[in-house]
């Protein structure tokens, strides 16, 4: 894969991780779903370039990669915000105010489902069960869980992530 490394769109660390990932399983193709997710973590979404490189790394067509990627709800073909807020509104969260949490995020961020703030800091998504039912209502911001939320805790949470974004931006 030396030829590819020189043209990889991924960081050296991620490229090295992918080199190892294709050797991890009895079949190379088993690396596909994790690779798509890790690629998205780095690039932000599954761009044409991401799909092209992954297809090449696995040794399958780009169409095949798109077909698989389109099945999984966490994978996206468009950019999201730096912090993707995923609010669960499935039954257990709904019963304890999941929709109130969603509404509060909409109000505070001035965006709706699958929309991104103008500055690109936040996107918002209503999602299905995230496996935090006994600690409802729950959300995930990227991969971080926030359990037992209340609408009034939403502004503080947004501020905390804004601060994080500013600190990272300053570096």
């Amino acid at each position, binding site marked *: 894969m030396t030829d590819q490394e020189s043209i990889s769109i991924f960081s050296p660390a991620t490229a090295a991780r992918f080199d190892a990932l294709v050797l991890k399983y009895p079949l190379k193709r088993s690396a596909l*779903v994790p690779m798509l997710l890790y690629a998205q973590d780095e690039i932000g979404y599954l761009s044409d370039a991401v799909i092209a490189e992954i297809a090449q790394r696995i040794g399958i067509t780009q169409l095949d990669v798109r077909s698989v990627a389109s099945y999984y709800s966490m994978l996206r073909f468009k950019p999201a915000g730096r912090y993707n807020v995923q609010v669960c509104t499935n*039954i257990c969260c709904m*019963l304890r*105010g999941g929709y109130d949490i969603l509404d509060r995020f909409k109000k505070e961020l001035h965006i709706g489902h699958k929309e991104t703030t103008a500055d690109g800091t936040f996107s918002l998504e209503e999602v299905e069960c995230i*496996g935090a039912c006994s*600690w409802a209502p729950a959300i995930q911001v990227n991969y971080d869980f926030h359990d037992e939320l209340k609408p009034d805790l939403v502004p503080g949470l947004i501020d905390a992530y804004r601060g994080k974004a500013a600190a990272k931006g300053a570096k």
Partner: protein
Amino acid sequence: MPRLVSHPDEVKIVSQRFGQGAANIDRYIELGGYQAVKKCIAQGPDWIIDEMKASGLRGRGGAGFPTGMKWSFVPKQSAKPKYVLVNGDESEPCTCKDHLIFLHDPHSIIEGTIIAGLAIGAKTGFIYLRGEYRYLIEIMERAVADAYQKGFLGKDIFGSGIEFQIITQTGAGAYEVGEESALMESLEGKRGVPRIKPPFPAVVGLYGGPTVINNAETIATVPHVITMGAAAFSAVGSARNGGTRLFSISGHVEKPGVYELPMGYNLKKIIYEVAGGIWKGRGLKAVVPGGSSTPCLLPDEIDIGMDFDQVAKAGSMMGSAGVCVIDDHTCMVEFAQRTIAFYQHESCGWCIPCREGTDWIKKTITRIHAGFGEAKDIDNVTTIGNNMLGRTFCPLGDAAAMPTLAFVKKFRKEFEDHLNGKPCPFAHKN
């Protein structure tokens, strides 16, 4: 970090190391970990399977299939490699127990996986976690790396000359992948569309090899069965239902949480004593006893023991033991709508009864809840539901139809109260 709860009636077997720092391998060993697997190496595969059979342990994913019997179906001789597959996709709404196992006791999953591998003669185990559980995957990966370092995994585990490897895998968001054959498809890098059965996984599974697939809680229970002994484990539960279960209690109770109780523990006591009763001093309207796919029970139907057989006798299923409690301020039409909306979203679309059925039921119940329903819509929902049951390759079609049919049957009056432009009678703030 998810809050841990406790109640005096709990029998902490699977959860005994929760909150004890057992994600650290040395701490796990200090707390008695990795002793069961050593015993299994000494005793051999037939003994392990006999113990599992005698323990009465049944699959914690929801189907309740006897674990020892499942393992015994794997052929002893196989041209293709055999595999152990741990299902940590945990996606059934109301269920969050595996979440805590991965967080607090990842080595019990590793130890159980090795024991399953010894039992069926597999050299490789896979641990598949849903993609949303990234922080848990990282904990799991660290635990696996530590186990390799200690020589508990690899070419010569515990100096026995036996090889066993563990490979972790992440999903990327899909409820259906929790179905065993769909999970294998996903692990092979494909869309998570279920396979036609037979052949069953024990004969043709992952990469075409004989495969045992167990829920994460089942696997985490295995070392405890070995440590306690089958007889002692079986004695904890009820008839034909060995041991304990992690109950994920959610919804309108004062003290939601994951509680470990003996199989057969009374459902009414779970709600009113263990979970502290209905919140805000309200009344009980319904209980979803085993994850969102199980038919709801009415308040006069909950004086039952929570095991696979007793809940089935009451007309529902124990499923994943995700108990969702619904108070009397809740609109059951809205609840039914949100339930079917989930299944409609998750249907892969392969089987027409599921693809069309979930869509039409969602549309119809949405219309009813919005006040635009007509009398015939209610029977239409039932007709569509009945035409989905048993007519799909995987259980998703049934999972969508079963709760829906129960909602309509048990709360028909509430559906009728929404018809002909009437506003939702529960359209007040909770």
